[in-house]
C-alpha cells in the first residue's frame, strides 16, 4: 500500500472513529446501534488486504478506546482480528462479488459483538449476552444500510489493489 493510500485509509478510520463515539453511538434504533468504524474497516480491509486491515483495526480501536477513556486495547484487539479476517477475504477472488461488502459487514458485525462479549467475560467484567444478542439484528440492518455509501466512498478514495499485487491470492470455487 502506497504512503498516500495509507494516509487516506488512516484519515477515513480516524474520522469514522470520531463520528462513532460522538454521533453514531447515540443512534439507538430498535435496540441496535450502527457501527461506522466496523463498516469503514470492512471497506479498507476488503480493498487493501489483511495487513492494512489489521493495522487499521488496531489504530481505529485505539482511537475509540482513547476517546471514550475505555479499557485501552480491548477494541483494538477485536478490530485487529476483524480487519485481518476481512482482509484475507479481500485477498480471495470472492472480493469482486457484488455482495462481498454486505456479507462481510453482516458476518463481522456478529463476530465483533461476540468477540467483545468474550473479552469482557474473560476479563471478569459484566458481559450481558442477552442485551448484545437482542440488539444484534437491528445492528446488522443498520450496518448494512451504511455499507453501500461507506464502501462507495472508500472505493473512490482507495484504488482497489491489482490482483497481481497479492502474493497469495486464493481462488474461490463456486
Amino acid at each position, binding site marked *: 500500500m502506497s504512503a498516500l493510500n495509507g494516509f487516506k485509509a488512516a484519515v477515513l478510520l480516524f474520522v469514522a472513529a*470520531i463520528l462513532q463515539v460522538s454521533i453514531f*453511538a447515540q443512534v439507538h434504533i430498535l435496540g441496535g446501534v450502527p457501527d461506522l468504524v466496523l463498516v469503514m474497516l470492512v471497506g479498507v480491509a476488503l480493498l487493501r488486504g489483511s495487513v492494512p486491515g489489521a493495522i487499521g483495526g488496531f489504530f481505529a480501536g485505539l482511537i475509540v478506546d482513547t476517546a471514550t477513556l475505555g479499557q*485501552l486495547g480491548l477494541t483494538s484487539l477485536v478490530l485487529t482480528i476483524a480487519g485481518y479476517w476481512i482482509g484475507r477475504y479481500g485477498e480471495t477472488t470472492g472480493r469482486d462479488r457484488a455482495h462481498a461488502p454486505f456479507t462481510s459487514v453482516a458476518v463481522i458485525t456478529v463476530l465483533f459483538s461476540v468477540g*467483545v462479549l468474550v*473479552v469482557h467475560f474473560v476479563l471478569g*467484567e459484566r458481559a450481558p449476552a442477552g442485551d448484545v444478542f437482542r440488539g444484534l439484528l437491528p445492528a446488522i440492518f443498520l450496518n448494512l444500510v451504511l455499507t453501500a455509501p461507506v464502501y462507495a466512498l472508500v472505493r473512490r478514495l482507495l484504488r482497489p489493489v491489482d490482483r497481481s499485487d497479492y502474493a497469495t491470492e486464493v481462488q474461490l470455487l463456486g
Partner: protein
Amino acid sequence: MLLVLVLGALALLTVSFRSPTSGPLHDVQGYGSAALRPFQVAAERVARPFRDAYGYFAGLAHAKSENEKLRRELRDANAIANANLANARQAEALKKLLNFEGGATYPKDYRPVNTTVISYPSSSFAQVVTIAAGSHSGIRVNTPVITADGLIGRVANVGPQTASVTLLTDPDNNVPARDVSSGVSGLIRHGQGSTLVFDRVSKDQIVKRGDLIVTQGTIDRRYPSVYPYGLSIGRVLNVGSTDIATFLTVTVTPFARFDSLDAVAALVSTKKR
C-alpha cells in the same frame, strides 16, 4: 504482523486492566483523549442540528392533517427553528443548572464545573458518558455529576480535559440514598427499563409512593460518602413486598433523563484534603 498487533493490543489491555485509573498508560490515554476532544466537540456540534431536526420530524410523523398554508408556514418556521434549536436547548439546560447552583439546595463545600457531554454509551456493557472537563478543572475519580434535574452518576476515569461518568443506570453503580419524608435509608441501583430501585429497605420501614429520594451524604466522618447530602435522585413510583423477600421492592423514577444528557455539572469538593 498480525501477531505483533494482537500482542500489542493484549499488552495494552493487560496494563490498562491492572491500573485503570492511574499510571503512565492512563496519563497517555488522558492526553490522547484531550487531543481528540476538539474533534469530538466539532462532530457533536455539526450533528446537533441534524439530530434536533430528526427528533422534530419524528414527532411530526404522528400529526394528522393540516392545510397547505399551515404546512408552508410550518416549513418556514422549521427552517428557522432548526437553526436555533440546538443553541436554545443547551441554553435552557444551562439556565436550569445555573438556577440550581444558585439555589438553597445546592450542597455546601462544593463548586460546580459546568460542562457538556461529548460522547455517549457505545455499547450495552457499561452506561458511561464522556464529559468535556477533566483533572485540569479539578475533577477527580468519584466526583459526583448532576444535571439541573438531579444526580446522574459519578466520575469513573479522568483525563486532563475529559472524564468518563458512570451513570446511575449502570449495574455497578450503587448510591446511598434516603427517603426525605420518612428518613429511611437504602441503596439506589439500576432497575428495569429507565427506572431505579431503592434497595435494602427492610419491610418494617414505611416508604410511600411519591416520596422524594435524595443522596444520603456522609453519616460517619471516618467513612465519607462521595455524594453530598440532598442531591435529588427521583420519586418513588411504587412500593411492593413479597413474603419471601427480606426487603421492600421500591421502584424510583429518576428525575434526570439519561437518554438526552447535554449540560451537566461536576461537583468538585472545595474542602482541603
